[in-house]
């Protein structure tokens, strides 16, 4: 590889990292829009803090755990700290060298994925979880749980070579985030007022749908970095074409997911449901994430559209069985993450259905059980649910002592 190719790949990876970093803004706006006004400051605080915690924890222990080079065994990577040593020029020019980009750029690209997995959790547990318990969970999730299971596939552990293929992290990032969220929601219970006395779900409308819409578009844009960057190279004829295909498939899947969800919700409810349309686009994006490089564009449209229909049905089903997920994160990232993983063997001969199912069971099962343990430990110590009075008054006042839209307020004398 020439120095120019190395520089181009590195540059591409860093730009994609910046795009994925921006997805944190997308999640933040989406969640701020879909919760009630009295929980706005708290959800914003949670999102900015979780992003920062994810970056620090992954730097401290996560990165070396996920990519140990040589793990202790196929299941346990062992501990390591900090970032890897930067490449030397000799590494690049050596005969048969596989060095293709700066190792710090690789760290930069990986660290923003952790934050994405953690962002998924915050939406599902919104409006009733204690801020500090959530942030404590974020420390464990981003420092240990996420990198541990990431090692199994991307880091060369047990799933590597089992026919499990997860191009950009439909399972490793999205399904993992959703599994952690599901464990939290199960222990946390639904929001006060979500269900009638006879158990029917009630609507709790989000406060700001323009913000939610902006959040969705930011995520859609960031996803070009998420999927596009996962090619990990752009210099050269093959890489450049592969990246272009990933962009096209990612965009088409999102578009198809949105249209499918909009139509399906219109068919079910008789009205055009914006929040379902937004989740449809995200469902399309998640569904294509496990394999955006191999399907022909028409197949990407199909995968996205199926995701869009499935997410609507899934959100309604979770609502019915008392799993209260204010933003639909478990459906979007969990159910569609699994759907996307199962779609990979349709176009990728390196992936097998058995391998995909093994990955789903292993990653999903591990993250769910490990998270359940951490949530339970936090519940026994800090407590994870706010007091009912605080929930009624709003988490903004209870946790942050601040309102998003203060009226009739003035500085204390």
């Amino acid at each position, binding site marked *: 590889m020439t120095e120019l190719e190395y520089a181009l790949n590195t540059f591409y990876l860093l730009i994609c990292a910046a795009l994925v970093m921006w997805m944190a803004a997308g999640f933040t706006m989406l969640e701020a829009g879909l919760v009630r006004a009295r929980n706005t400051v708290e959800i914003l605080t949670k999102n900015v803090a979780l992003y920062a915690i994810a970056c620090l924890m992954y730097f401290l222990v996560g990165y070396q755990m996920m990519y140990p080079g040589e793990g202790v065994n196929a299941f346990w990577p062992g501990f390591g700290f900090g970032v890897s040593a930067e490449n030397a020029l000799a590494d690049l020019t050596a005969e048969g060298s596989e060095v293709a980009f700066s190792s710090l750029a690789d760290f930069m690209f990986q660290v923003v994925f952790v934050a994405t997995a953690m962002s998924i959790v915050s939406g599902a547990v919104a409006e009733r979880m204690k801020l500090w318990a959530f942030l404590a969970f974020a420390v464990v999730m981003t420092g240990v749980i996420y990198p541990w299971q990431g090692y199994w596939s991307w880091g060369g552990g047990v799933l590597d070579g089992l026919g499990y293929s997860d191009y950009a992290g439909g399972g490793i990032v999205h399904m993992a985030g959703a599994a952690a969220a599901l464990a939290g929601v199960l222990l946390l219970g639904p929001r006060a007022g979500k269900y009638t006395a006879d158990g029917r*779900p*009630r*609507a*709790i*409308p*989000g406060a700001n749908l323009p913000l939610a819409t902006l959040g969705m578009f930011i995520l859609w844009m960031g996803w070009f970095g998420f999927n596009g960057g996962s090619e990990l190279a752009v210099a050269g004829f093959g890489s450049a074409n592969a990246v272009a295909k990933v962009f096209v498939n990612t965009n088409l899947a999102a578009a198809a997911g949105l249209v499918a969800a909009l139509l399906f*919700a219109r068919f*079910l*409810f008789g*009205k055009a*449901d914006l*929040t*379902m349309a937004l989740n449809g686009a995200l469902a399309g994006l998640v569904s294509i994430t496990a394999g955006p490089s191999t399907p022909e564009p028409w197949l990407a449209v199909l995968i996205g559209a199926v995701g869009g229909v499935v997410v609507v049905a899934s*959100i*309604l089903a979770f*609502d019915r069985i008392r799993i209260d997920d204010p933003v*639909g994160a478990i459906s979007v990232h969990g159910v569609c993450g699994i759907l996307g993983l199962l779609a990979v063997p349709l176009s990728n001969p390196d992936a097998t259905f058995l391998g995909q199912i093994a990955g789903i069971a292993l990653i999903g099962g591990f993250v769910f059980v490990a998270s359940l343990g951490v949530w339970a430990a936090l519940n026994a110590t800090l407590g994870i649910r706010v007091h009912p009075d605080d929930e009624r008054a709003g988490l903004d006042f209870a946790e942050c002592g601040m309102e998003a839209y203060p009226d009739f307020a003035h500085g204390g004398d």
Partner: protein
Amino acid sequence: MKLITAIIKPFKLDDVREALAEVGVQGMTVSETRGFGRQKGHTELYRGAEYVVDFLPKIKLEIAVPDDQVERVIETLTETARSGRIGDGKIFVTELERVVRIRTGEVNESAL
């Protein structure tokens, strides 16, 4: 002197203000408000679940007028605020005991 309080549909405000100015109304106070009458509320849909909006947005006008203007103002209000459909609102007239203009201290009709 009377205080005329009118609850009207928000989209009628411009027409009403213009018509009232034409019949000599010197000033008014307007607030955004919510409520229901015979119209009741309506249902909306969020993620497939219906929810009821009990209180619909309305505009409240408060106009203080001398006695000889009362009928004209009521007439103008009924004409311009009416759409003929349910939810057009109501007019309440109450006795006004005293009015003071804060800047000058003028009282009653000269303060209107």
